C-alpha cells in the first residue's frame, strides 16, 4: 500500500512540533484519512480538519482525494489574505 510524505506548515507545524511526517497508507486512504492518522499521532491537531485545505503533489485536492504510494500530502492552513472560497 505504500507510504505518503506529509508536510505541515505555519500553525499546524507549530502544533505538531514537526514539518514533516511519513504515513503508512491503508486501503483507500484519502487526504482526510491521512489527516486522521496524523491526529492520532499529534493530538494537538484535533479539530483542525475543518480548517485546512489539502494538496497532493502541490495541487489543491478535495478531502476525499485518494492518496497513493509516494504522494506528497500537504496540509494547507488558510493563507494570510483570503478565504477558502476560490
Amino acid at each position, binding site marked *: 500500500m505504500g507510504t505518503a510524505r506529509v508536510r505541515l506548515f505555519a500553525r499546524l*507545524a507549530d502544533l505538531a512540533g514537526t514539518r514533516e511526517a511519513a504515513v503508512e497508507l491503508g486501503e483507500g486512504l484519502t487526504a482526510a484519512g491521512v489527516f486522521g492518522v496524523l491526529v492520532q499521532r499529534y493530538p494537538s491537531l484535533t479539530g483542525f480538519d475543518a480548517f485546512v485545505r489539502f494538496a497532493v503533489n*502541490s495541487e489543491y485536492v478535495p478531502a476525499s482525494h485518494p492518496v497513493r504510494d509516494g504522494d506528497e500530502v500537504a496540509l494547507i*492552513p*488558510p493563507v*494570510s489574505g*483570503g478565504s477558502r472560497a476560490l
Partner: protein
Amino acid sequence: MLFEVTADQLDPDRVVKHVRRDDAGAVALFYGVVRDHNRGRKVMHLEYDAYPEMATKVMHQIAAEVKERFGVAEIAIQHRTGRLEIGETSLLVAVSSAHRSEAFEACHALVDRFKEAVPIWKKEVFEGGEEWIEGDLSPPDA
C-alpha cells in the same frame, strides 16, 4: 515569467527588468511592505512560512489566468520568507502591457489572487504575543 520564493531581500530592479519588453509601454510594480500595526496592535516583525514548490506552481497558474484575462505581456512575482522587519518588502508583483490600464488592473488582480491561493503564511509578532494570520476563517480554539 519569473516566480520566486526566497529568503533573500527582494530585488525590484530585477523584477522590472524581467517584464520589460519593447512592445510594452507600461510596467506596474506592486510592493507589499511590512506595516507597523495591525488590528490595533503594534507589530514588531513578521515571520513568513511557505511551501515553496507549491507556491511557485500556484503563482504560475494564477499568472497564466491573469495574463489571458487582461492580455498583458509579462509577469514577475517574488515573495520573501523568514523574518522580516518593519518596512521591509515581502512581495513584489510586476506586470507589463502595451497600455497602462491593463497593467494596473492585472497587477491588482494578481495581488488579490496571490493572497487567496498561494501557500505562504505570516506570523505576526506583536507587542505582547504572536499569532499566525489565517485569513477570514475563524480557526478552532487551540
